[in-house]
């Protein structure tokens, strides 16, 4: 059973361990600097690997197509999410816009975990998907803010500051920077650093997901603002967005692995870059809502259900 197989990977099991430990209120915790170190490492590693792969494969029209499609998805997905959040979860305009921004953007860890599983299943996504992910991180924030407040309410200074926050966000810079470094050095010069960035990758990902399990569950426990309608959307939105992502992948004629990765990007919701930007730009929106939905509902759902699903659907739809 491939789905069951995915769940038996050490990466996923460490996530489950984190969830269980936090649910049992164990005092197990991952110090914040270690979590931050691991995420810097993961971003540098996937950026580099993606760049090296593109250096090898060369620029293809699909790289451009996927980039454009990714950015479009990031701009557009919040629209549908917004409508559902208003109608079904009964959120006000402000909070619906704030949440929508998260669902248009992406979760790097979800992508990385999915790539790892796809690669292990013999469907490694194309290297350029890392760049696509970096490009998808931020457009959704713009749509989300416009939905929440209308364009008129931002002064020029605020808009500039927000754009800077969103474009020069640390993870965007590190992902794209490492991607360019990978491009520049190519496969041969990459060898000297491969032991750290390739060989060590899956093991370190285990520790990172242990932390994510702890954090997601702790957040769920502190989620006073989360209604069952919001929780339900936290599961429905990734399914809807993932289906759209898969359809776009089919339209572009992407191979199964690459298309599955695009679907996972559409499916996933940001819980690092976007919350910080939204807290700044929409201070009246309730962080308890958007963090709980993306981090405590959608993220675990994607790790435990979304990835196995896409591993099945990818080859079925795109194979």
């Amino acid at each position: 059973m491939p789905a069951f197989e995915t769940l038996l990977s050490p990466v996923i099991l460490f996530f489950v361990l984190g969830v269980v430990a936090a649910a049992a209120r164990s005092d197990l915790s991952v110090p914040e600097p270690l979590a931050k170190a691991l995420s810097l490492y993961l971003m540098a590693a996937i950026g580099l690997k993606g760049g090296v792969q593109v250096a090898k494969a060369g620029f293809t029209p699909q790289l451009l197509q996927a980039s454009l499609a990714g950015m479009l998805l990031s701009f557009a997905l919040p629209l549908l999410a917004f409508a559902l959040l208003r109608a079904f979860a009964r959120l006000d305009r402000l909070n619906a816009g704030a949440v929508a921004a998260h669902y248009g953007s992406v979760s790097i860890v979800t992508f990385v975990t999915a790539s790892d599983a796809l690669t292990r299943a013999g469907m490694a996504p194309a290297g350029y998907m890392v760049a696509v992910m970096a490009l998808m991180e931020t457009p959704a924030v713009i749509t989300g803010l416009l939905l929440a407040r209308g364009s008129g309410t931002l002064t020029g200074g605020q808009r500039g500051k927000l754009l800077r926050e969103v474009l020069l966000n640390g993870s965007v810079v590190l992902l794209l920077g490492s991607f360019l470094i990978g491009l520049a050095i190519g496969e041969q010069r990459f060898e000297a650093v491969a032991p750290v960035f390739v060989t060590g990758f899956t093991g370190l990902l285990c520790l990172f997901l242990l932390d994510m399990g702890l954090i997601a569950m702790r957040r769920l426990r502190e989620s006073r603002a989360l209604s069952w309608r919001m929780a339900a959307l936290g599961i429905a939105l990734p399914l809807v967005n993932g289906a759209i992502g898969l359809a776009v992948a089919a339209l572009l004629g992407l191979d199964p692995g690459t298309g599955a990765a695009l679907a996972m990007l559409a499916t996933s919701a940001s819980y690092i870059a976007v919350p910080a930007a939204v807290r700044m730009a929409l201070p009246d929106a309730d962080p308890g809502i958007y963090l709980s939905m993306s981090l405590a509902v959608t993220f675990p759902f994607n790790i435990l259900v979304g990835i196995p699903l896409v591993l099945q659907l990818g080859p079925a739809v795109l194979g």
Partner: protein
Amino acid sequence: MIQTFKRKRIDILVDAPLCDWLIEQAGEAGIAHHSLLPVHSGLGRTGAWRDDDGYGAVPKRMFVVVTNEQKVEALIERIAPDIERYGLVITIFDVEVIRGERF
């Protein structure tokens, strides 16, 4: 005996992503200098949080300023409309300082 001067200290608990905004407001209230202390964890109306959570909007800092009464008032005046929605926890208290001209 070394002379001391009466000044105010203002300590503000503030979300890390709002620090830049607060620093800017302080600057416009004439407060050019400050320090930020890390905060380990906390419990408020919106539940518990801890620095280890590491993600999203939650971590807090303690913004600490030593200055005179007028500047404290100017800062409070400026940020008053946002105190509630930004969830700022503000304490102001009397302190003695040594270098009166600096603060």
